């Protein structure tokens, strides 16, 4: 549908890596790479946001450097830290060496004692890596501003050593689950991509390609079932990973179609909250009617 060499290449790249995509995803990845801009990906949990970075790294044949964000993440965990224990040890050993204070200081504040954290790793990597900043919304706003600075200057200053400039600018992917609204400044620095839960066709496509041995009819029923489950009021809506886990489990059991008892006993694979499970159990007949009706029609 999209006719452009660059786009086709990305599409092919994604396909080769087993990532089932859609035009908007292809376009965003293409533009992020062409315009050298970070790509901000938002969407519910389990729709394959992180996966994009992995696929991209594989396709570009480069390394993936990942910074997992969490509450309280600060510069020492994102940038660098000195290896204090080794520094102390080194000082102790150099006690009788007759070195001057300046020499000692130069010794222990050298690259040898520097622990590189993801951001520093990314900008000093031997080739441009893919830098995945995962779940940025979990870190606080202070960290976001700090990150913004790194993303715009591509240099990090370490007081003891000096300024470290990026040897290669990494390709940056930022993901967010929308815990909190990200700052306007960060948004404006990035291209934006929203990924929704897959529709039936896309999910079926994914199941077929990731679980090759699966029975055709089972795959369809399973995907219909997942589509219906996602419409329920659940604590934790299952993502694609859950669908695949389930598909693999059932496929391994050589199941050919969904049965009520079977579903009941394997619900734990797709639902991870006991209230959700109970709710699904209660409305299982209803769910089955919907799924069953659809698959019957398909068989006609």
């Amino acid at each position, binding site marked *: *549908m*999209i*006719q*452009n060499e*660059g*786009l086709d290449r990305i599409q092919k790249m994604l396909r080769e890596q087993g990532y089932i995509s859609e*035009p*908007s995803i292809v*376009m*965003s990845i*293409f*533009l992020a790479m*062409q*315009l050298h*801009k970070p790509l*901000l990906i*938002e969407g519910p949990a389990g729709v394959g946001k992180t996966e994009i970075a992995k696929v991209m790294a594989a396709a570009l044949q480069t390394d993936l450097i990942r910074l997992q964000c969490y*509450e*309280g993440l*600060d510069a020492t965990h994102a940038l660098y*830290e*000195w290896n*204090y*224990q080794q*520094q*102390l040890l080194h*000082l*102790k050993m*150099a*006690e009788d060496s007759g070195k001057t*204070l300046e020499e*000692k*200081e130069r010794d222990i504040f050298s690259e040898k004692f520097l622990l590189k954290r993801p951001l520093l790793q990314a900008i000093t990597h031997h080739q441009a890596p893919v830098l995945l900043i995962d779940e940025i*919304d979990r870190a606080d*706003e202070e960290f976001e501003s700090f990150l913004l600075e790194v993303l715009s200057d591509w240099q990090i200053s370490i007081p003891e050593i000096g300024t470290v400039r990026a040897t290669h600018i990494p390709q940056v992917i930022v993901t967010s*689950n*929308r*815990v*909190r*609204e990200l700052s*306007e400044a960060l*948004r*404006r620095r*990035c*291209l*934006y*991509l*929203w990924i929704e839960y897959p529709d039936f066709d896309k999910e079926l496509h994914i199941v077929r390609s990731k679980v090759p041995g699966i029975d055709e009819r089972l795959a369809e029923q399973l995907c219909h079932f997942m589509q219906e489950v996602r419409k329920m*009021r*659940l*604590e*934790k*809506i299952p993502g694609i990973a859950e669908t695949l886990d389930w598909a693999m489990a059932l496929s391994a059991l050589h199941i050919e179609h969904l049965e009520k008892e079977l579903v009941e006993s394997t619900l734990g694979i797709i639902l991870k909250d006991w*209230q959700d499970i109970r709710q699904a159990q209660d409305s299982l007949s209803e769910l089955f009617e919907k799924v069953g009706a659809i698959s019957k029609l398909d068989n006609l």
Partner: protein
Amino acid sequence: MFNSSTTMELIQRQTSLSANIVAFCRFLRQKGYTIGPQEEADALRALEVLAPFESPESLQLSLKATLARTLAQQMLFDEFYTQYWKELEKAVNSKPKEGAPEKKPAGQGQQPPKVQSIKNWLQGGQARETEEMATYSTHEVMGRKDFSTIHEDRLWEVTRLIHRIARSLALRQSRRRKPANRAIQLDLRRTLRLNMRRGGEILDLAYYEPAQRKQQIVLLCDVSKSMDLYSRFLIQFTYAFQNAYRRIETFVFSTSLNRVTSQLRQRDFGAALNELSDAVPGWSGGTKIGESLHEFCQAHASRLLNKRTIVIIMSDGWDTGNPELLSESMRTIKSKAAKVIWLNPLAGSAGYEPNTLGLQAAMPYIDVFAAAHNVESLRDLYRHLK
């Protein structure tokens, strides 16, 4: 729908594609998109790298990727896109001379009345108030000597109190650390630095302790019809709260839930109102607390709530929704949050009993149930929370 192949025709008929893109950016800006020179440049560069252009779909996708930078903007983009080219088509066909396609979008004229209606509502038209009062029992009438009739000069007192409440709520321990004088945990980094000047002999030790951290607050505010009397206060309250304290998420609900954090984060109260009126469709409607809270649990709770989050619900508990769902949602919220505070404007009136069906369902999961109908009650609340 709109035939996209004509888009390309149009582009050829107009002077150049990039001129159109610039005009389109202007069109989006009118629609509230934040598009600066950077975004414009991105869009133009996207066209460059995509050239030669063959499909209208990729034009649309590339503009979407470069110009729409929030979920809301993405959702509306396709519609605006179609609208723009349609209007351009009309413009070009009607006078096929020259001229930038600067058409006024059709929806523009509707905005002022909408703002007006919310303002009227906030000022609480007297006629409507009495009409409202008749609907409910005498208990509620007693709650009238309160924020619904608050004087301007006491407003600053409310604001100040809210600032204090916000601050007292806010201080908790953080995962980050700060230097300490007591021996709590050894800070190697500072120890090393401290002793370096003595040639590396460790004589002094440095310590750190957890820093105080600001607490996350989630404000859930009932804006259904039964709460109309308190409307002015509620908006003031949430607005003041939000401005006193940045780490806060605000939602309003009647029959469904709306996130209004960003709308309230405006310097100017008027501007905040404008944004609010655009963002919240079902203002002053019925109440479905259960459904709304459930929506909150589903979409936001697992991420927004943690053991450092205080949830403040402001509602009278009048509910036409499902009480089971309410109690279920309250349980979820309670299990995930540090504290659940229910502020009820009716609770201040004499003889009030929290016996609405909704409140009874929610009661077991509430840590603090308090009145919030006048300045004194707020002062009580402050003492409560200290």
